[in-house]
């Protein structure tokens, strides 16, 4: 069986070779969905180490970006063995970077983590208009909407998106979380979101709480 501690450390070290070898070997043993979940959890703990190293100025934004890429690669490899637990999907989320903003690195990190945690994730991409959010919500009826943005102007776009959801009579059917560097408590209130975060792991916990 895969050594989860070693895996967690390899993710923390951003040691791509070790991670991919371990995951590939693991998938080749045709593991149970339950074991696969444990591997995902070990990766998430590794991401927490990455977060700590970022806080202490050992890692910088470039390392976060690489970490995000590694995580989504890992999840992709695990998908076939995780699909055995598909019946246990814990909820669904529509995510996107709001109108006028083209930054998607933070959104993608959150998206991979949510997917790995068992959410159905519908990613609308970047520069997503309020009406595109509304249409998708009508179509897939998610429990949660996750809006991302790093430009100052993203705050206005988030506000407009919530307004559009209100006008379409959809606001009360979903929880809304916003993420990205400029969001804070004030912005969250102004926008009319339910919660905000500048940390993907924390945001994921909030979402898990909502679908319990």
């Amino acid at each position, binding site marked *: 069986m895969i050594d989860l501690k070693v895996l967690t450390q390899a993710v923390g070290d*951003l040691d*791509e070779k070790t991670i991919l070898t371990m995951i590939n070997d693991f998938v080749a043993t045709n593991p149970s969905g339950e074991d696969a979940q444990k591997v995902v959890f070990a990766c998430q703990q590794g991401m927490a180490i990455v977060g700590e190293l970022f806080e202490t100025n*050992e*890692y*910088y*934004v*470039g*390392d976060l*970006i*690489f970490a995000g*890429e590694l995580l989504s690669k890992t999840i992709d490899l695990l998908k076939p063995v995780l699909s055995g637990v598909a019946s246990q999907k814990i909820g669904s989320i529509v995510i996107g970077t709001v109108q*006028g903003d*083209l930054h*998607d*690195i933070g959104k993608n990190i959150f998206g991979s983590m949510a997917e790995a945690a068992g959410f159905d994730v519908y990613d609308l991409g970047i520069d997503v208009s309020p009406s595109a959010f509304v249409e998708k919500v009508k179509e897939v009826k998610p429990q949660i909407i996750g809006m991302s943005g790093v430009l100052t102007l993203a705050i206005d776009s988030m506000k407009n998106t919530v307004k559009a959801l209100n006008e379409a009579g959809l606001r009360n059917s979903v929880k809304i979380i916003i993420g990205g560097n400029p969001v804070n408590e004030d912005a969250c209130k102004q926008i009319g979101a339910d919660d905000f975060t500048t940390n993907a792991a924390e945001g994921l916990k909030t979402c898990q709480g909502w679908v319990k």
Partner: protein
Amino acid sequence: MTDAVTMTNERNQLFRDLFSGKTPKRVPVSNPATQDFAIQYAGLDLAECQWDLTKLEPVYDKFCQDFFTDTYPGGSIRIPSHYQLLGSTPIVMSSSGFMQHPEVVGLLAEEYDEFIASPYDCIVEKVLPRLFTELNGAPGKVAMSLAKAMRAQSDDLAYLGTIRAKMNAKYGYAGMIGALTEAPFDFMADFLRSFKGISGDVRRYPDKVAAACDAVLPLMIKKGTLPNPSMLGYTFIPLHMAPYLRDKDFATLYWPTFKKLVETMASMGQNVQLFVEQDWMRYLDYLYELPENTIMRFEYGDAKLVKEKLGKKHIISGFYPITLLQTGTKQQCIDKAKELLDILAPGGKYWFQADKSVINFEAKGPVAENMSAVLEYVHENGTY
């Protein structure tokens, strides 16, 4: 001599002194706002004016009239016409009319070796067709697109040049010319591998990244060379990626070719202005090694520490936080300018510029009034 010519001569002298390390008569001042601001300030539509440059002359006249500056306030403009004609993906106009840079990949990871062997050929054959849709296709079609785009660009530049000459003749600005280039690592990131791509490359194939920076250095030098190094002016180098790298990646991958670039410019007798973007405080000892009188405009950091560490050798600029113009009272804005003058002006080697460009104007906001007050204040109180 007309007043304007006298003023131009005086201002040229300010900058000649500044760039050669002598204390000028007063602290030179540059207006931090850009053409985007000027258009909105004149009450016109941002997108429309960038397509129809004939609308710009009154825009600049009002802009020059209302805000004090020693240098012509029309720098670093991305004109949309030729980008559009080339089918540009790395520089596009947003729905609000702002010219922006989305994430693009011009060079694939597996093409590194080819790039390293011959960067110029690789850029022409692989990168440009990928980044500019109109440069991808039958040679005849490509030739037509290129001809149209170059014609449009030279017409536009000539038109902007005429406006500039008129404003210089009327307002007596310093007659400075500029060239623009990038640090090799930043060039690899911005237009070739993307922010995401280079962040992975640094971990996966650091040797190739280093070799690519070496290979592209001569092109970056060529791009930054002024028509004649004795002209009053400088090579502008905006710095992007260093704050996002670990110290050891910076030391081995970013710094060596960047340092060579700046040293080469200096050895040709050219001034260099660095726009030190984001937080470089952990790299001050490196910056100290750059040639004497390199101009460093800081976006962020401790002005006192920078003056102490670099202020005797280099010319310091920047730091003035434009967000204050948005949120502060007029007095607070002036106090901040005074604080920076007190720290940075003593001993000369200081040029008043802001931390960032002001690109946005809200009619109801305080920015225009505050900015005008700050520029006046530095003009009047920056004397030595």
